[in-house]
């Protein structure tokens, strides 16, 4: 439970952080909330020689709406998301997600940027961001680039970020009219990663039919999974229990979980189906209330 020796650098600006990453290359790791990095270091699963702490970098911890976009700074803590009136009222799916991550102690430190950048299919924000069609803003030595969420998750613990890039912001399209989203997670106990979890986002047209659908799944694939076939099945349809069940079944079929202590693969697939169904139902009731 004691990490290997390492040295610690605290960056005062984004430029300094990038310079440090360039200087140390693969030996360096960014520290945001430290809630994934530090446990891995304590188990000596990660042994970075240098920690580059970006918590002193100004301007990365804001939540703002502008130009039809919600912009969440990479260093925004889960607790901040959970409590933000803007998030709770306009983006309840994000509040749902933040609320079920780990426990309050972890959420006080854990950041949404770290949650995505870690590339862990067990983390909860990725599914939600997939369902919302978010974009990730990265800063590197050659400036800023915007990465669509569908291209962001490459494999387990691997994202599209280069080793010297820093995730600075997450952009979520502002909510269209008559929309609603929900995140449903099944865990063995509080603080656990999901057995399976589902994010569902729906927008209805004037006739009440489904105009937009997003479904993301947590911890049932080697990376965060967008259930595209399920989304397609919903589009243009009038919401119904039958339709949702069919979509949930398609989502479950897309899942390819591995058996472990959280349960056999078949079970996880079943839970993914149940969570998808329940997330869709809740998303619909929110969309209708909106």
């Amino acid at each position, binding site marked *: 439970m004691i990490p290997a020796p390492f040295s610690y650098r605290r960056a005062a600006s984004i430029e300094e952080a990038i310079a440090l990453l360039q200087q140390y290359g693969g030996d360096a790791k960014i520290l945001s909330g430290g809630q994934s990095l530090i446990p891995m270091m304590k188990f000596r699963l990660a042994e970075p020689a240098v920690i580059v702490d970006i918590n002193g970098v100004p301007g990365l911890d804001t939540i703002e709406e502008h130009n039809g976009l919600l912009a969440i700074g990479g260093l925004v803590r889960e607790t901040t998301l959970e409590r933000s009136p803007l998030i709770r009222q306009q983006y309840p799916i994000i509040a749902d997600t933040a609320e079920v991550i780990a426990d309050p102690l972890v959420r006080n430190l854990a950041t949404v940027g770290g949650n995505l950048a870690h590339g862990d299919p067990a983390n909860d924000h990725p599914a939600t961001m997939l369902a919302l069609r978010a974009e990730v803003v990265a800063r590197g030595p050659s400036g800023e680039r915007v990465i669509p969420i569908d291209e962001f998750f490459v494999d387990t613990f691997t994202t599209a970020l280069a080793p010297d890039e820093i995730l600075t912001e997450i952009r979520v399209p502002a909510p269209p009219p008559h929309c609603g989203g929900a995140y449903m997670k099944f865990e063995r106990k*509080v603080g656990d990663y999901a057995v399976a979890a589902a994010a569902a986002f729906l927008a209805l047209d004037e006739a009440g039919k489904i105009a937009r659908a997003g479904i993301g799944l947590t911890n049932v694939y080697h990376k965060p999974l967008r259930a595209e076939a399920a989304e397609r099945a919903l589009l243009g349809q009038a919401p119904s229990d039958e339709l949702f069940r069919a979509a949930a079944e398609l989502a479950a079929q897309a899942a390819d979980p591995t058996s472990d202590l959280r349960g*056999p693969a078949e079970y996880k697939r079943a839970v993914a189906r149940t969570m998808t169904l329940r997330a869709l139902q809740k998303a619909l009731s929110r969309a209708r209330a909106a």
Partner: protein
Amino acid sequence: MTTTPIRGLGHPVKRKEDPRFIRGKGTYVDDIKLPGMLYLDIVRSPYAHARIKRIDPSKALAMPGVVDVITGAELEKAGLAWMPTLMSDRQMVLPTERVVYYAQEVAAVVATDRYTAADAVLAVEVEYEPLTPVLDPFKALEPGAPLVRPDREQKTNHIWHWEAGDKEKTDRIFQEAEVVVSQDLYIPRIHVCSIETCGCVVNYDRATDKLTIWMTSQAPHAHRTVFSLVSGIPEHKIRIISPDIGGGFGGKVPVYPGYVIATYAALKLGKPIKWIEDRSENLQADSFARDYHIHAELAATRDGKIRAMRVHTVADHGAFDAAANPSKFPAGLFSVCTGSYDMEAAHVAVDGVYTNKPPGGVAYRCSFRVTEAVHTIERMVDVLADELGMDPAEIRFKNFIRPEQFPYKSPTGWEYDSGNYPATLQKALDAIGYQELRREQAERRARGELMGIGISTFTEIVGAGPSHTFDILGIKMFDSAEIRVHPTGSAIVRIGVQTQGQGHETTFAQIVAEELGLPVENILVEHGDTDTAPYGLGTYASRSTPVAGAATAVAARKIREKARLIAAHLLEVSPDDLEWHDYAFRVKGSPDRFKTMQEIAFAAYTNFPQGLEGGLEAVCYYDPPNMTFPFGAYVCVVDIDRGTGLVKVREFLAVDDCGTIINPMIVEGQIHGGLTMGMAPALLEEIVYDDNGTILTGTFMDYLLPTAVETPHWKTDKTVTPSPHHPLGAKGVGESPTIGAPPAIVNAVVDALSHLGVRHIDIPITPAKLYQLLAEKGVAE
């Protein structure tokens, strides 16, 4: 009269120990820091079974700050490579040839700081030749199975066979019985997971030749005796101090190799040594609990009267039998498994088996295997009810030992002291609205919903124990108290038991307050230091109140008898003319003439009668005449989520009877904690190994300790049936809820599915396990 209230028995006195804990001012072993202290850390085996070919410490020794690397070869020269267990087995301190479980201690590193020690552990090179591990106790018993313990004379993995009851009579009843039910039950391996892990600080003072060990010990006196016997150091030169202990639950009764290695290192290096386990070491290598494979049968009449019980258990003890049971009871008090029911005969047999897993079989809040016993009988009664189509409450009423049968001689030889089982169950059923719940269940079933109601009416056995039957390594299981009243009427009480959260500093003060009529805040309770406390066997198995509590009451009564003589002297009457009433000695017939204990105490030092010794103190070593038998009736209501397999405990009512209650607030706290620790193995906790014997649940990420979120809202109530032989009428309570809760929960879940032909589910009832069952029965969503 004193104006300060006494607050003796029955008062919800706030815990005297809490102000220091709440302020973070407790002193745990890891808070002990001595000048020049070195840190010890342990190299552990990555194999469950392997031959050690070579240990090369040179790289570690070359690291700056590393002082020493200790191996089994070195300990062997000192005669310390092995140590005795409390169960007359022996256990490796450090191996010389082979490792026999995953995470076993292989070598120890001593360094000038904790961090260097951790780095050096990884620098010790160990070459292993992996051997086939034996993990399944049934396979371990097969001929030709690899031997876990070739060091033993007996070339088998079988440790011992133990039985109780009348086999012949039991078999006869089974042959002629109208109805026989049988069931396999597995009670999996779990871990106590105290919040404070184990550890010690050892200091050897060369000038005084004294060895002082601060140690996470539930039984400091017994540990000192063991240390003295093993090391040859005279007992008065060893002082064991058990400071504040962050939970014991049975896991701090055994002696762990780390304690011995640290002591060896302190003696060798002449420097204080600190060894503190980290969480994973604690979870992976310290003694586990349970792991009983039980085959149980009941014989009954067709109208539901139980006639006999037959049980055979295979007990997986890991690589060393390092349980901490009384000597004559290798399977603990498992033979109390006939429970609250009157039957003609019973026969119980247990076989202990070695496997390549960490050692133990510790009594995790279970009063020596009573959790296993109660789980067996409370499940079996439901199995029988299901067979006969009877209501689980009805079958219990039909079979209860009746109040007038006490003291009741059980078919396995126990004498139950007191009880009123029907009254307690009736109280629980009325309070929860049992008939209404059954109606609701029928309605929900019709709608396809799964709801269940479970009952557990358990009998506990605590207070080990009478000297004719109970000892640990030959030391009789009495316990002790020493009370000294100071001239101004305050007192110090020293006891032989050791609190780990039970609140002894409060409840034992209340006993003295009640018996002597001194305000509870003026009574200081001390324990845990072998140089000052009287000898005792420690706190576990709910024995503190039944044994040391009795000792305290008896010691206080001895003081009161002397106080009577002093009061008579002060009041100038004959001692016979005095009666103890309303916390004072009063002249019979004129109660306004009295002396309080405070006045008497002052006189004991300033104005005592000729011929009497001065001072006011007493000692008692109490040998209990019998065990006490707390009991209770628990009712649990569950709803099952058909989409996930999750069991939601909607309601849980615990009606407990622990005899006279000393502090109702502490009793309620013990019950809340115990229920939570009972719920956890029923629904969440299990130690799991892979096929190589590597632990898969070696961190809290996978060993699922419940939090407040998973914990249902507990409702508690009580009946009071005092123990006839305890001076206060008190029984124990700490373990009743851990014992009573699991079958109540399992019975509720099985009840929810009984209409689908489900009769038993092994714990833990995880959502994954239950969902699979729902799918098999065609009711999964």
